[in-house]
C-alpha cells in the first residue's frame, strides 16, 4: 500500500529536520505511480501533487514524528479535502419545495443507472417518502422489463411508456400524474449514452430542460479509467449535473475516477453502490474512499 511505501521511503529521512524539495521528490513520484494505478486522471494527479508540495515544503517535523508520518497525513487530508464538498448539505438530495422531487439519472452504458434507480427508490421509501420509478430507456432491449421487475421487488409504482410514447413524453406524463399516483418523488431512469452521441445528448438535455429536476446525477462506474473526466465534463456542460453516484464500489477497483471527477467538477458524491441488491446503496464517506484510492 502507499502508506507502507511512504513509510519505507522516509525511513532514511528520519532525523532530517524539514521536508525539502529533494527529500520529497522521490515520494511524489511514488504517489504519482500509485494514483495512476488507482485510475486517477493524470491532470488531477498533477494538481494534487502541486498541492501536496505546497503544503509540505518547509514544514518542520516535530521530534515525535518522522517526516514520513507528516507527509502521509498531508496526503490523506488533501485526498479527503478534495472528496469533501465545501457545502456539507450538498451531499444530500435536493427536495423540491413543491412535490414531486425529481431525480434524473445519466451516464454511460452499463454504469448501473437502472439498478441505482431502484436502489434510490428503496432507500427513500425506507426513509418515509413515496418514490415512483420512471422507465425512460426506450433503447436497450428489455430495459423497461428490468426496471419493472425491480419496481415490483421493492413494491414501488412504476411509469412505463405507453405505445409510441417517447422518453421525454413518459417523463412529462409521470411528473404530471405523480401526486395522483401517490408519489412525492420520481426517479427517472434513462438510456445509457455516449457523451459524443449528439442526438442522445440532446434527448437527455431536452428532458432536463422540460421537467427541471432538482437532482441530475451522473452515475459513474468505480472501475472507470482516464477518459471518465472527458465524459463527465461533457455531461456536466450540457446538463448542469447536481451530483454523482459511484457504482460497483464493492469491486476491488481503486476508484480513482471519483477523485478525478470530484477534483474537476467539485460535484458532491451522494451515494455509493456496494452490491447488486436493492439495499446496496450507502451514503458517501470521504475517508473510506480516500483510503482505498491510496491503496
Amino acid at each position: 500500500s502507499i502508506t507502507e511505501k511512504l513509510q519505507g521511503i522516509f525511513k532514511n529521512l528520519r532525523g532530517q529536520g524539514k521536508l525539502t524539495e529533494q527529500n520529497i521528490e522521490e515520494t511524489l513520484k511514488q504517489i504519482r505511480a500509485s494514483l495512476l494505478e488507482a485510475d486517477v486522471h493524470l491532470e488531477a494527479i498533477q494538481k494534487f501533487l502541486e498541492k501536496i508540495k505546497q503544503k509540505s515544503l518547509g514544514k518542520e517535523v516535530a521530534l515525535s514524528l518522522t517526516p514520513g508520518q507528516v507527509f502521509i497525513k498531508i496526503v490523506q487530508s488533501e485526498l479527503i479535502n478534495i472528496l469533501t464538498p465545501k457545502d456539507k448539505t450538498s451531499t444530500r438530495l435536493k427536495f423540491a419545495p413543491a412535490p414531486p422531487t425529481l431525480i434524473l439519472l445519466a451516464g454511460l452504458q452499463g454504469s448501473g443507472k437502472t439498478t441505482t434507480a431502484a436502489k434510490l427508490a428503496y432507500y427513500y421509501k425506507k426513509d418515509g417518502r413515496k418514490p415512483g420509478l420512471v422507465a425512460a430507456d426506450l433503447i436497450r432491449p428489455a430495459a423497461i422489463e428490468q426496471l419493472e421487475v425491480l419496481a415490483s421487488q421493492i413494491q414501488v409504482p412504476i411509469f412505463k411508456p405507453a405505445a409510441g410514447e417517447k422518453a421525454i413524453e413518459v417523463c412529462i406524463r409521470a411528473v404530471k400524474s405523480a401526486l395522483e399516483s401517490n408519489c412525492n418523488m420520481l426517479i427517472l431512469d434513462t438510456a445509457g449514452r455516449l457523451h459524443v452521441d449528439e442526438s442522445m445528448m440532446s434527448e437527455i438535455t431536452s428532458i432536463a430542460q422540460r421537467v427541471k429536476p432538482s437532482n441530475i446525477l451522473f452515475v459513474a462506474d468505480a472501475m472507470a479509467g482516464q477518459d471518465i473526466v472527458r465524459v463527465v465534463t461533457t455531461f456536466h456542460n450540457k446538463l448542469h449535473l447536481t451530483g454523482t453516484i459511484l457504482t460497483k464500489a464493492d469491486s476491488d477497483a481503486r476508484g480513482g475516477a471519483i477523485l478525478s471527477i470530484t477534483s474537476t467538477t467539485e460535484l458532491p458524491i451522494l451515494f455509493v453502490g456496494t452490491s447488486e441488491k436493492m439495499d446496496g446503496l450507502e451514503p458517501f464517506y470521504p475517508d473510506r474512499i480516500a483510503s482505498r484510492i491510496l491503496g
Partner: protein
Amino acid sequence: VINYRTTPEIDFNKLEETLLLADISLQTTENILKTLKSRIESNSSKSNDSGFIVEQLRQILVDKLQINNQRGPLSESTIILLVGVNGVGKTTTAGKLAHQLTHQGRSVTLVAADTFRAAAEEQLTQWASRVKVDIVKGLENEAPATIIYKVLKNFSERTQTIIIDTAGRLHTRVGLMEELKKLVRVAEKMIPLTMLEKWIVLDANMGQNAIHQVEEFHQGIGLTGIVLTKVDGTAKGGIVISLADRFHIPIVYLGVGETMDDIIPFDAQEFVSALLP
C-alpha cells in the same frame, strides 16, 4: 547522448501523457518508452525525425498486441462462453456475435445462462428474435450449470455454434467465481476442448482494474480470448496493451456500438492507429 526532453519535434513527456491517458499502465508505458529510446539511439541519424519516432512507437505497440497473441479461426463447431464483470456488454456481444456468425453461414444458438439479473433472459430473448437465432432458456430456478449441461448433451452430432451468455460477476466474489468454474468444468467434460472458447468481455472505459479481472478469470477458467466493447466512445482501451504483455490472451473482437452490426474482428494496426493521435 541524446537529450530527448529538448528535442523540438518529439516531446517524450507528451508521449508519456498520450500513453497514460489511453489507460496504458505506468509500468507498460515506461517500458514502451525505454524500447523506443533504445531504437532511437541505434538510429541516431533519425533522432530528430518525429515521423520516424512515431512510426517506431506504432510498431512497438502493434508488436505487443500481435506477438504471441494471434489466434486461428474458430473451429467449425464451437461453444463460446462469454464472461466478465457487470455491465461490460456480454449480453449485447452475444447478440451481435450471433448475428455475425450466422452471416458466416453457421447455425447459431444463444443460451441464456444468466438466471440472476432482472430481465436478463428477456434481454437475450429480444436479441435472439432481432438476429433471428434460436435461444435456449432455463426452466424456473434452474441453475446455469444445468442449463449448459442440457444444451451440450444435444450438441455432439451437429456442426453448431453455441454462444452462452453468463451473469455479470465481480472477480472478487468467491462464490460467483466458483459457480463459473463449475460451469466450465461441466462444459469441459462434455465437449472436445478445442471447441470451447472462453472469452472475457472488457469495457474500453475501464482502467487498471481490467488487469485484476483478467488475472482472476484467467486463473479460474483459462481464458481463450478477450472482447473489448464500447470502443465507439472516446476511451482508448489501452489497457489491452498491458494485458497483451502479461497474459498473451488474443483479443478477438471489438464492440463498436449498440446495434447488431456493431462488432468487428480485432485488428492490431487499426487499433493502434486509433490510439495514437
